[in-house]
């Protein structure tokens, strides 16, 4: 009996086990094969942008050639930085755009032929002409999707000759909106502190995103720095070392300037620092750094200077500076040296729930949010210079954006990064040319381009939202 048992039991068990594993292996297949291909690479679309035609009497033509050329340059620059397009070289055009009208052939007898653009691989074709009547400029544009011979955008723009760049930028915004559903950033502006006025002073300048139309908005004849845009793009807050008439001492006081009205007022003039302004999305208050209590801490303040709550408090001897409110207004990034070295932290807008998010490097500063609130960009000290980095809002997935050397072979400083209002570009300063100039690149650091082209210095550029 025992011997039978000893033989039978293992056999039975073995049988059971094999049956079980058999059942497991044969399950789980049998349905149709399904393959997820995954995220696509992206590529630029081939775009043809022939010269803008002048419509009018030939006699008047020469003096308006430059107008057409400038419209062309603005559109070309906007569309090329949009990262959506690659331009087709005019030498490969199969038809002469100056001899065909801006409408397609069968409908317009003198029109262009889709076929001759299709053959050279054109995905989008932009045809435009302009007329000038007195001081009024009219730009008529058609953007075609060549493959299915359809019009993506057909629009006419009218304005004064002086608003030429604005008209061209508006067209580019409309084109991007028609294609992608998201408007471009071409009507946004930059506020920056610069010494380009000479005299050793730094004043605040406001300019178009492409560096043109620069306008000086301060004249303190002093060091003026850290401009910041209000969310509606009507105000700029900044700090200036101004002399006080009574004590004859200089203090870093905070001012606010309203662009449409030209109104300027003193917001905060407490002893010590009144700097690092950052607007709250409520269009009523700002966050700033005050050092009235000793070490710098972050406070909330109304536009008229009424002091609100103190957001950060200590630890003892630690500074808390450079507030940056997240786009949803719920979180704030800031720099603090509470751990010994300046690092990036985030917290709730009321100062609760403080989290350190950078651990690498020796010195991380100037945090700034992406418009979707998912990423932060900052300047990090690595080796012997600053470079621009981006990371998720929790500090993960850190990417180095910049890496450049000066003509003398030493590493250049790349600092003060901010996102573009559409979140597709980064702007920062770099001294790779010898002086601190403004640069723009894609989010991965590619397609770097210099926006300013002089030998002056630019500090802490800030990018506004689109300004209508």
């Amino acid at each position, binding site marked *: 009996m025992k011997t039978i048992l000893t033989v039978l039991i293992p056999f039975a068990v073995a049988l059971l086990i094999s049956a079980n594993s058999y059942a497991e292996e044969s399950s789980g297949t049998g349905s149709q094969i399904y393959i997820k291909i995954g995220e696509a690479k992206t590529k630029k679309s081939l775009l043809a942008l022939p010269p803008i035609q002048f419509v009018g009497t030939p006699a008047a033509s020469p003096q308006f050639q430059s107008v057409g050329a400038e419209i062309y340059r603005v559109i070309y620059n906007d569309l090329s930085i949009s990262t*959506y397009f690659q331009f087709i070289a005019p030498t490969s055009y199969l038809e002469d755009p100056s001899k065909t009208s801006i409408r397609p052939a069968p409908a317009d007898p003198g029109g262009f032929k889709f076929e001759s653009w299709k053959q050279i691989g054109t995905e989008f074709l932009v045809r435009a002409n302009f007329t000038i009547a007195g001081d009024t400029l009219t730009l008529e544009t058609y953007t075609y999707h060549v493959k299915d011979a359809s019009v993506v955008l057909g629009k006419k723009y009218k304005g004064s000759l002086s608003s030429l760049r604005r008209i061209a930028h508006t067209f580019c915004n409309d084109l991007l909106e028609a294609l992608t559903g998201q408007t471009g950033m071409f009507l946004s502006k930059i506020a920056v502190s610069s010494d380009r006025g000479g005299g050793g002073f730094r004043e605040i300048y406001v300019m178009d995103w492409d560096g043109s139309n620069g306008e000086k908005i301060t004249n303190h004849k002093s060091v003026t720095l850290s401009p910041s845009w209000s969310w509606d793009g009507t105000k700029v807050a900044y700090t200036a070392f101004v002399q006080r008439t009574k004590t004859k001492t200089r203090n870093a006081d905070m001012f606010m300037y309203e662009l449409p009205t030209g109104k300027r007022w003193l917001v905060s003039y407490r002893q010590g620092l009144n700097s690092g302004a950052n607007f709250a999305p409520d269009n009523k208050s700002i966050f700033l750094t005050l050092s009235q209590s000793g070490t710098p801490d972050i406070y909330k303040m109304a536009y008229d200077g009424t002091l609100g709550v103190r957001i950060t408090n200590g630890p003892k001897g630690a500074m808390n500076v450079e507030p940056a409110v997240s786009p949803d207004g719920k979180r704030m990034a800031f720099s603090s040296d509470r751990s010994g070295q300046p690092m990036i932290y985030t917290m709730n807008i009321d100062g609760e729930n403080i989290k350190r998010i950078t651990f690498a490097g020796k010195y991380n500063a100037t945090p700034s949010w992406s418009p979707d609130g998912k990423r932060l960009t900052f300047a990090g000290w690595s080796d012997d210079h600053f470079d621009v980095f981006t990371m998720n809002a929790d500090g993960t997935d850190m990417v180095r954006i910049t890496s450049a050397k000066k003509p003398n072979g030493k590493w250049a400083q790349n600092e003060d990064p901010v996102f573009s209002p559409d979140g597709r570009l980064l702007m920062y300063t770099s001294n790779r040319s010898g002086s601190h100039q403004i640069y723009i690149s894609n989010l991965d650091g590619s397609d770097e381009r210099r926006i300013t082209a002089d030998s002056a210095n630019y500090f802490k550029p800030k990018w506004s939202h689109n300004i209508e």
Partner: protein
Amino acid sequence: MSTLDYSPEGASGRPDLFKQSVGYSIIFHFLVFFIFAVKTVFFSGEPIRYESAIKVDLVAMPDKIDLAQPIAELEPAPVEKSAAPTPAPAEKAPPQPPQSTKLNPKELKKDIDRDAISLDVAKKKQVAAMEKLKQLSALEAIEKDIENDANKKKAQEKPKPIKGNVLSSGSELSGVSRLQHDNYISIVEHHIHQNWALPEWLAKKNLKAQIRVRFDENGNILSKDIYKTSGNPSFDDVVMTTIEKSAPVPAPPQKFVKILSVEGILLGFPE
């Protein structure tokens, strides 16, 4: 007398006790074995899944990615990265600040040793995998035998005319064919992914399309049709062009030809 202890009574009594205890022991052991066997058979937990491991290098401040280089070339460089004078190698990333640019030769050596060890481990893994494969194929052979037997019996019972159920042989994949199947799928996925590029203006719209494609034994496209449209003609167009560009796909293993040419496969762009 103490010597009388060797009396026949004593001698015959002890072996009996011994035999009995051995018997109990065997029964007890089998009982334990049986309990565990029943437990594993009827109350088995989650099946263990074997997936390939990924080596992760933590670098304190990441290097700028050189976009001129294709990403594939960047991949086999993690050893170099940790040896480069960039801050803090792998494990010691967090609270410590990077210790300037000095290289620590000991750490370097450690790194190399670790790599040597991981080579050994990899070899062992390979051997283990081969063993597993052998086991699987053996299992399969047994299954086939069982199936053959069953078929023989069936054939004896009723010689029914079988009407071309051509898919049955391939649709149930297990063991080695399952591995081959997974392998082939990842080859096809990789192959098509190489050609999968969207114009930037279409990329951020979160569009999705599914295409049913049939391939012949050489990987040429027999047919392709939209199974689920993205709703955007331009997007569907790019997806179709991607498939056309990808033809021919790598030739499928003989076993899957029938599945691929009759049932086809569903391709999700991007999922």
